[in-house]
């Protein structure tokens, strides 16, 4: 049975499971909504501080670096998801009925890979977008941006 829909079925089940697990859902919400805001505030204070000493270069590099930080942390959730999807299934014995079913190994791998990457990546991009919006919002509202030597409020 070389059908991709079975791999998607596995992924869908995993995704539903993730959306019902507060251990996964809560960090994702925090890392998507709160963490970018926190980074934005941290960036503002840091830039304001280093600008006092005319260290524009640090200010210019800090914002792109924080994009990486904001994007990276939600992606780490994929480790938990992958752990749940493979080791968790073995520990709880839920892998056995799957292995005894017509699902082939690649259905399980692809399905779990999709489930392990889709949500953390989406959450990561949402986090980056929120962070960027917050940054550009400040620039477009007429306030000094990152290249400015004036304080950023």
């Amino acid at each position, binding site marked *: *049975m070389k059908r991709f829909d079975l791999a998607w079925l596995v992924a869908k089940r995993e995704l539903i499971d993730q959306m019902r697990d507060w251990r996964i859902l809560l960090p994702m919400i925090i890392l998507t909504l709160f963490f970018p805001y926190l980074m934005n505030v941290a960036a503002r204070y840091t830039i304001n501080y280093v600008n006092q000493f005319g260290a524009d270069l640090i200010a210019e590099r800090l914002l792109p670096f924080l994009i990486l930080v904001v994007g990276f942390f939600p992606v780490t959730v994929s480790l938990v998801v992958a752990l749940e999807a493979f080791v968790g299934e073995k520990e709880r*014995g*839920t892998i056995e*009925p799957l292995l*005894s*079913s017509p699902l*082939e190994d690649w259905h399980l791998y692809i399905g779990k890979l999709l489930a392990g990457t889709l949500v953390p990546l989406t959450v990561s991009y949402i986090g980056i977008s929120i962070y960027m919006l917050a940054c550009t919002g400040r620039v477009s509202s007429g306030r000094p941006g990152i290249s400015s030597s004036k304080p950023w409020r």
Partner: protein
Amino acid sequence: MIECEDLTKYFDSFKAVEGVTLNVRPGQVLALLGQNGAGKTTTVRMLTSVLTPTRGWARVAGFDVVKHPGEVRASVGVLTEMHGLYGRMTAHEYLDFFGQVYDLAPARRKHRADQLLEYFGLAQAAHRRSGEYSKGMRQKLALARALIHEPPVLLLDEPTSAMDPESAQLVRHEIARLRSSQRSIIICTHNLVEAEMLADQIAIIYKGRILIQGTLEELRRQLLGPMEYEVKLSGEWRPEEFRWPDGARLLHAGEGEIRFQVENPGVANPLIIRQLIEKNSQVVSVQETPRTLEMLYLKAMAQVAEGAQ
């Protein structure tokens, strides 16, 4: 149909299963008995194409377990030792998921799920997450999963282990119904009373090898010898005046009772009872000495232990 010959599985140098030969025809139940770690689960895993045999062959529902693993798995319903439920899914969602895995049409999936949940008394809890279920309810849901696609072959590991007596009886009825609808069933169990009730064939596995295999009657003859009977008497009985027919021998004579063994009870028993009456012994009762599967199992294990010494 389940057939295998010389089925063997080594994990490096450890011999988990060696030379297992089984034949379960449609409409038959085979009880696979043995200690923990005897090789029952490994045998089942080979029969479901989860493990590849080191040696030997097996065919399940007509498909070779090595050459056609997909077809084998589609034809088998497996109840594993650990129930393997997803605690955050409801019973209905869980059965629907496995219905899709087994490629059932949506209407058929719903019908089967409703039917099984109703039968196992889970209809009221169908939309509750299985994580909230009791152990017995989980076991029933796992069994419903094994039956969702109406497989011709069933491999059930401890099907009633966590159930209350009513639920266990329900499951035994279902297994009996499945047998009568020409399914081939293997039950791995430690519940010898249940095995005795359900099984047409019994195989005792020890350290990966089949010790003994056959019908309950064959096993009784092989392990415990000919049939035994017990007669309760109210009068006096003199052994010196008694003539035992061919194939019968006295095992025990006590106060008001005798126990004997006969090769051919149909011929010998009437002769024995007539003699007792003629010699003025008052026969109160005659009954076959119960020889349970537990006795057979323990005898087989004792023989193994004796052989090892």
